[in-house]
Structures are given as C-alpha cells and as structure tokens.
C-alpha cells in the first residue's frame, strides 16, 4: 500500500501527510523502513501534521526528533496538530 504520511524519526509524536487524508481513513505512516497504521479522526490536508500518540497539554511535540513546540490542549492520536492546539516556545515576546 502507498504511504500517505511520513514520520521523520521514530521518536516523533507527529507525522506529516503526503496526501490529503480524509477523516475516518487509516493513514499509512512511513517511519524509516516500517509502516504504521493510524486512523485519522479529522481531515488532514497535504503537508499538515497529525498526532501519532496521545500528547498531553503542555507536553513537547517532536518532529525530526527535535522539539517543535508544545501542546496547548490534549491531542488524541489521529487528530490534526497545528496552530489551534500547538504553540511555539521561541520568539515569544508576549511571554516575557
């Protein structure tokens, strides 16, 4: 089966869609040589991310095995992960 998403490192807790993935469909997530199956609960547009595992509010979000921000609310596996539920830790003049 053709992969529909990529997780760059196995430690990542989000994957990136490389096809439009409609809600209810199972994403086929390439992680190195492996392919994981993750049902997505929302439409995931090409290039957008979804959670591979549950990410609790305040928890770090990992991509490239690096922290790309933190969850601003609980994110369930298969949910879209983006600006509505994630924030940056850097360039935050509003927090100082």
């Amino acid at each position, binding site marked *: 089966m053709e*992969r529909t998403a990529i997780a760059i490192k196995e430690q990542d807790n989000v994957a990136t869609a490389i096809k439009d993935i409609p809600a209810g469909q199972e994403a086929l997530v390439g992680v190195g040589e492996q392919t994981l199956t993750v049902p997505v609960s929302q439409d995931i547009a090409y*290039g957008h*991310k979804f959670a591979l595992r549950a990410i609790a509010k305040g928890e770090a979000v990992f991509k*490239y095995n690096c922290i790309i*921000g933190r969850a601003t609310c609980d994110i369930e596996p298969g949910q879209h*992960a*983006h600006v509505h539920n994630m924030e940056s*830790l850097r*360039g935050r*003049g509003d927090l100082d």
Partner: protein
Amino acid sequence: MNFLGYRRPDGKVGTRNYVGIISTVVCANEVAKGIADKVSGAVAFTHQQGCCQTAPDLTRVTETLCGLGCNPNLAAVLLIGLGCEGTEMPAVQEAVAASGKPVRTLFIQELGGAAKTTAEGVLIAQEMAIQASQIKPQKCGSADIVLGLKCGSSDTTSGLSANPALGVVVERLVAEDAVAIMGEVTEFIGAEHILAAQAKDEATGQKILDLVERMESRAKAVGVDMRGGQPTPGNIAGGLTTIEEKSLGAIAKVGSAVVQEVYEYGRTPRVKGLVVMDSPGREPEILTGLAAAGCNVIAFTTGRGAPQGFPFVPVIKITGNEKTWNHLRDHMDLSVHQVMDGRESLGQAGTRIYEAIETVASGTGTKAEISGYVQAMDIYVTGPVI
C-alpha cells in the same frame, strides 16, 4: 562542475555579464531604472535606503553597495546618486574600481536633473555594454561557484524534500572547493544547536548562537508572539506550525556541511566552503545580501511557490511540492517532489539540482529571469528611519 563563466580582473567569475546601474540612495531609483530600461544588457539595482538613517545603517548601506558593485555578474558599474545622500559615494566608487572593472558615478543635482542624468547615463551605459559584450566566457569549475542558499514560501515539503536534496548539493559543492552562503538567521531559531554543532570549532558555533540570539531578541522586543510574521500565514497554511519546525526544515539545505565562518550581512566570505551570513528571511533583503556577498548563482527552494528573482544573479527555483510544480510552472525551474513518496532518492534529486546549477551558471535562463520577475531587492537595515 564545468560551466562557461566570465572571469573578472580580480579573478572572480560571473555567470552573467551585465552592466549594473546602481542607485545609491532611494531618491535616485527613477534615474537608475530609466537608464537600464534604455540599454540592452544593463540592469538596475534600486532600494529604499541611503538617507535619514543612523550611522550603523548608513555604513551598512555603503558596504552593501560596495559588495553589489563588486559582484562578478556585473562587467561594469554606473553609480547614480542624488548629490545629498547619506551613502558614502566615494567609498563605493573606490571599492568597485579596486575590483578592476569600469565604474562611473553621476549625481542628479550636479547634472541638472533626472532627464539630463538619464541621457548622460544612457550614453555611458551603452559604451559599457559594448565593452562588456566583447568579454568571452571561459571554462570554469566548481571552485568558481559562490552559491547563495534560500528557502521561501516554505511548507512542510521543504524540510522533507527540496531542502535536504539541496543539502546533498551543498555537501558536494563545498567538497569541490566552492563557496556556499546561508543566511535567514530567523530560520535558525529552534535549530541553532544543530547548526552550531556543524561549525568547524566551538568559537564559530558560538558566533552562530550569538547571531540567533540577536535576531530573536530583536523580534521579542516588539512584545508579541512572532508567529504570523515567522512562520508566515503562507507557511502556516502549508502545514508549518512553529518557527522551530520551519527552522529544522530550513537548515536541512546545508546537509551536514561544516560551517567554516560567520559573517555580517552582505560581507564577502574570505574562506572557501559553507559560511553563515547574518540576514533575515525576507526575499528582497536576503537576495540582496547574497548578491553583495558575491554570490554568482542562488538556489532557492520553495514549497508553496515563491516567484522572486534578483536583477543580476540567477535564482533557481526548486520545489518539493507536486501541487506547486503543476500549478506554478511559470515560476518553478525544477521539482524534487518525487522524493516525498520515495520515487527518487535525495542523492538522485541532488544530482538534478547540481546539473541545473551547472547549466544556469553557463547561461541557461531561469524562470524568474525569463519572466522578468527579478525585482526582489532591498538592503537589510535594523535602525530607525529618522
């Protein structure tokens, strides 16, 4: 790499052979453009700086103009001033003359207005263009390449395909004794630890960290979350959520090449290999900075489709997004989207980018050049207009 380039008196190599009509202050742009419009082979550089600024910015403008005038893609240079600018005109004229190429300066107030200056400038530029047209291109190699690196209108494909494919090219070119210049310091934020670890030594790594801290402090001083400015609304629509995510994808365009040195904006590298130059990510400022640093070709990766080019340095557009490739053919030079679903390896995609650089360096026109989308230019300043 083998290409036909124009070797200049100072030994540098141009991939293009233009007469540069350089406006030295915002107030002289009309005349510079008017002259370039009337002379085949001439191009104008215009900008919004050079007057009513604090000393550090005026020095920045002067030094950037020196660098632009010395860029090897220009065979000769005509400088246009108003006559009362803050830019240090004699310094620019001297710097360009020292590179061994013909240079003249005209002042609008001295010559009696725009019409007279344009007429005089056209005659001078015609002579310069005739001289330039007699310069024959010669065989050149990788060691003559000064490659500028830029990613713009990025999306998540940038960090997964186009940028790492360009990284393969950078690794190869620096091994072949080329220079590669990376800017966009804002887009190191969140990834600077990786880039600093790629520096040739700890002191150089620290310079990278210092540049990032300076850039981030400047953004934070405004007192808001910089998201919306970086990443941009377009980045966000493309799936990039935070500056950290954007940066981790952005730095992939140098692969694992070693950072040899760190420079201020627009300064010419004195070493071979990969160097970092201070610059924001916005196109006019970074393209100008790369040109001032001496880049003779620029590789520009894009996800959503950035059209910008520069007047006298060819800018090659590389996308990793299949939709953008199909949708924006008149702006994209090549696509490496095949990397996304594993149809092509990064090495194969890198080879195609390498070959594109080689042919463009020999004179093949880029989409930006052919379509005339080459007006992304301005000088990066950090102080107030006063």
